[in-house]
């Protein structure tokens, strides 16, 4: 019997927007409850006779597997190359084929005994996806010592994978007494009931989560941290117990170069909340092995390069997880430590092409990586109800992720004078989390030092409580990030409205937050709405004057992040706006 089919909203949207000359793509999905859920796709470039999806699979969280193909054609014709892809589908006996016609009509077929049967599908909305699924993130460090040769690295990593798959490893859910054991042990789970599922466990860990909060933040992403421990004792009851007493063998050989490093495994698996804890073990083993294969490929690639052949210049592989808003699923990359993002553009370009992502903005630079954002609020405006949509209303919002910076943060009292600094920090965070750079968000002092350094302010400015305005923001962005800004002067608050088209254009083209200074106040504009019928403009304002804790409910409830009408602006004050510009790059 073929499974039921669900497709995430993300995939549906990506499919409807794809504009490609390629004829074939691959579909990635996971199985739960007899349902095949399609969560991702890539374009199959069929380059160099290699199937690119095999490498791409290593980038995806464990449990997500190849599940079928998508054809961009008007008829159901499966040529040999595509057939080969379908044969690689292991997750289900009935590989999926989706046909996208020229006029973007979509049909789905399951392959049943080499015949294609059309099937219905359900669309899974994005908030439903995040509600039903969660991620487990395995973090552990394997000490790695081997000969600095390709064979040496291959060998030892194969051994490590064998060891992890042998059942000797146990996984421990951080902060709990829950340990998961492999086949080498007769107990599957300890610390909780064997019948428990992961969702219940997570809920039991944070019982007093106010439901109100959950309603506000629809994109709550749950990540369960897991670590690993290695069994060092043998099973006494095993028939295969070898009891040879400890001994030491010393071997001499030709002098050879060895490398020794801590191999950091940082890997994800995407699982349904109803997954039983007892089923989690094999998922984590697969996640660890995926990570090891990815780490291996980066080490081998380096060893194959000129100059690093003997391992002397080998760099530690570093893992980054990305959750691009377009994709709706995680993607993991491993890159050599300290190699600048700029010199890895080629690899990223390929990835953008494979995933049919825009080629004009960074998505997979280090700065784009998913983080915890230092405990600050990320995109608080997403908790607001969406503005009403109608043909005569245009809405343009900030693109991507920023963090909310406001008064009194970092135990630093800037109440009454630091609003423009905070607004600038929000802009800096946007550039950082969009991957344009990896510069740390500057402190007030660093901002002042920068302005003194470029000769804009006297040295007495450092440590003072002097205000700054839009031009200073522009100077700092230019000096510290190399970002150019456009400055708009409005003589009065009323005049501001005439610049609405510029603001809409800014958010559509660049998408960065805008700093606005006027009178004694600075604010951050993160969106505009224009109603053509009433000729009214509303502004989405992120207010840096907030002095409380980083609590989303308060920030939204008390209007520190909210839509304001044009009467929000002082009719008689001058206003200066700083619109940070982006340059197309990846």
């Amino acid at each position, binding site marked *: 019997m073929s499974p039921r089919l669900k497709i995430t909203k993300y995939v549906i949207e990506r499919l409807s927007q794809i504009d490609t000359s390629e004829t074939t793509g691959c579909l990635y999905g996971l199985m739960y409850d007899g349902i095949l859920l399609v969560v991702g796709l890539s374009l199959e470039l069929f380059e160099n006779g290699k199937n690119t999806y095999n490498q791409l699979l290593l980038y995806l969280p464990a449990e997500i597997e190849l599940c079928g193909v998508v054809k961009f054609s008007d008829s159901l014709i499966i040529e040999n190359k595509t057939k080969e892809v379908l044969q690689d589908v292991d997750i289900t006996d009935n590989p999926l084929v989706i046909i996208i016609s020229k006029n973007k009509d979509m049909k789905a077929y399951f392959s049943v005994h080499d015949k294609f049967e059309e099937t219905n599908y359900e669309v899974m909305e994005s908030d439903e996806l995040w509600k039903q699924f969660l991620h487990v993130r395995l973090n552990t460090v394997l000490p790695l010592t081997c000969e600095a040769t390709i064979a040496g690295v291959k060998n030892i990593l194969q051994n490590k994978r064998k060891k992890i798959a042998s059942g000797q490893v146990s996984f421990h859910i951080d902060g709990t007494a829950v340990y998961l054991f492999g086949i080498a042990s007769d107990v599957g789970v300890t610390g909780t009931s064997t019948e428990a599922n992961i969702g219940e466990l997570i809920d039991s860990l944070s019982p007093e989560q106010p439901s109100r909060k959950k309603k506000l933040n629809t994109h709550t992403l749950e990540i369960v941290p897991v670590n690993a421990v290695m069994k060092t004792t043998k099973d006494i009851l095993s028939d295969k117990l070898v009891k040879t007493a400890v*001994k030491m063998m010393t071997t001499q050989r030709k002098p050879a170069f060895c490398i020794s490093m801590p191999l950091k495994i940082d890997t994800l698996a995407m699982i349904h909340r109803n997954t039983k804890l007892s089923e989690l073990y094999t998922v984590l083993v697969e996640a660890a092995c995926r990570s090891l294969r990815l780490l291996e490929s980066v080490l081998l690639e380096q060893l194959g390069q000129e100059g690093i052949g003997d391992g002397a210049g080998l760099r530690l592989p570093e893992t980054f997880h990305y959750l691009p808003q377009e994709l709706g699923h995680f993607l993991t990359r491993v890159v050599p430590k300290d190699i600048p993002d700029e010199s890895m553009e080629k690899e990223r370009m390929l990835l953008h092409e494979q995933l049919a992502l825009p080629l004009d903005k960074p998505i997979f630079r280090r700065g784009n990586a998913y983080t915890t954002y230092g405990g600050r609020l990320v995109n608080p405006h997403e908790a607001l109800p969406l503005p009403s949509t109608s043909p005569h209303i245009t809405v343009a919002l900030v693109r991507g992720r920023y963090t909310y910076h406001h008064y009194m943060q970092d135990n630093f009292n800037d109440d009454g004078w630091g609003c423009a600094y905070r607004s600038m920090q929000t802009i800096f965070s946007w550039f950082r989390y969009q991957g344009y750079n990896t510069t740390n968000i500057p402190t007030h002092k660093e901002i002042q030092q920068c302005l003194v350094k470029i000769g804009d302010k006297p040295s007495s400015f450092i440590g003072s409580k002097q205000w700054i305005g839009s031009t200073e923001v522009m100077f700092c962005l230019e000096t510290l990030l190399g970002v150019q800004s456009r400055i708009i002067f409005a003589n009065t608050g009323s005049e501001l409205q005439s610049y609405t088209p510029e603001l809409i254009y800014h958010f559509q083209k660049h998408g960065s937050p805008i700093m606005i200074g006027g009178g004694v106040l600075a604010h951050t504009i993160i969106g505009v709405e224009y109603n053509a019928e009433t000729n009214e403009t509303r502004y989405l304002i992120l207010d840096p004057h907030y002095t409380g804790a980083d609590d989303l409910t308060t920030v939204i409830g008390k209007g520190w992040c909210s839509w304001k009408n044009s009467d929000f602006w002082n009719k008689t004050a001058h206003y200066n706006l700083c619109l940070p510009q982006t340059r197309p790059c990846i």
Partner: protein
Amino acid sequence: MVRAIYSPEYCLQYLEQFASQEIFVTGLILGQITNSRENVIHLARTPEEKSTDNVSEESFTSDKQEPVKNLLGVSEAWVADHAKHVTRMLPGGVFVQGIFITSDEDIFEEPNYFSKVKSILNYMYRILNSNRFMFANCPDSNERLILHMSTNTKVLTCKSVEIGGPNKNTSIKPVEWKFLSKPQQWQRLDCYYEFDDVYPVIVKNSGISVKQQFQQILESAHKTIDSSVMFIDGELKDGSEQLEQIIKKKKSKNNTKTSQDLPKSMHVSLFVPFENALPETVEYLECDGSIHFSGVVSSSVFMYPKATVSEAIAAVKQDIIRSLASRFTMHCDALIDDNLLPEEKVCFNEPPRRVLVPVGSLYLCDYLFPGEAPAEALLSVRELLDLQITETDVICDIETPADTSEFDALDRDASSEELLATPQEASQFMYITGICFALFVLVISILVHYYDGIVDFIGKILTKS
């Protein structure tokens, strides 16, 4: 509350036997301290001293000499050496807790005698502290027991003194010594700890010190084992829970009728977290050797059933490290040359393996070098523990000696490191040797063939000059 010690009844007979013969004897008190009770396991008479100026490792032989008649004649070093050797035979959680003396003097009242007793205990403390991986001094208490039976009055007195502290005038505390009519029950915990580590080393011209290698292995093993998580019968237990309770719970769960059974051994498993404190760099070095340390340490510890899980965990961890340290010390003491010479391509070091020997209602251990028969263990049990056991009492199969064929197999398994003599290289070597030999034969035959001519030729040159 007065400190109380529980001892098996045979210890009383043991002391009385010396007292009735009116002979002066000193010996060690072996026991276990837990929060719920202190138990003595065994009293072991210190063998008679061979000679005062030769207190070496091999000195416990049965040569008879003039026995020491009096406490003041006892050598502190001798007793301490006894304690050191006995500690190797103790499982984790069991320690030398003090000394016993049978004599006609009142050792607590006579200042001379008492200061001698303290001096013996302090010396012992210092010697036992010299190798921290032996866990020879009980980490939980600095109070050592002094048990005295008067040969005159047959009165038994026990007191404790604090040792190792800065305070010279330590207070003496009374101790209540109780005998148990029934043998003490022990909860046994077993595990096999496995080692399998390969790491590169730099041999260069200086060679490798075996002792140093062992020391490094000990240090890393100690760190690893210390950080490990321990499961009992596959489950993570609350540290404050008593071992007895675990058994009871299990019984009520399984609801078996055979509740009269002796408590079965608990199976311990250790899980080591992967190291997180490594420096975040790639180290790069030229190595010309590798060390493969592999095999098991069999561990059996015996706990008072009311001991807590934490106490048991500490004992198991001590036991593995102590056993490793004991083997290494014994192995290095027996080595003629500590240095592995650079010429030796492959070198095996097989430390002695562990065997169990019954003492009272539990087991202590001993170590057998490769090729040694179980009878060797009888000797140390007699000498160091003053006990007679038979060869069949020794449990020899908890560990097996390594044979070299197994080594080869293990090495092929550890494919991360390549041996010097790979097959190709070997054949290449033979090839070159072959050619060299052929050339040599050729040169010789040419010499022989043209012998006359050459002699003639040389003669001519010589005469010319």
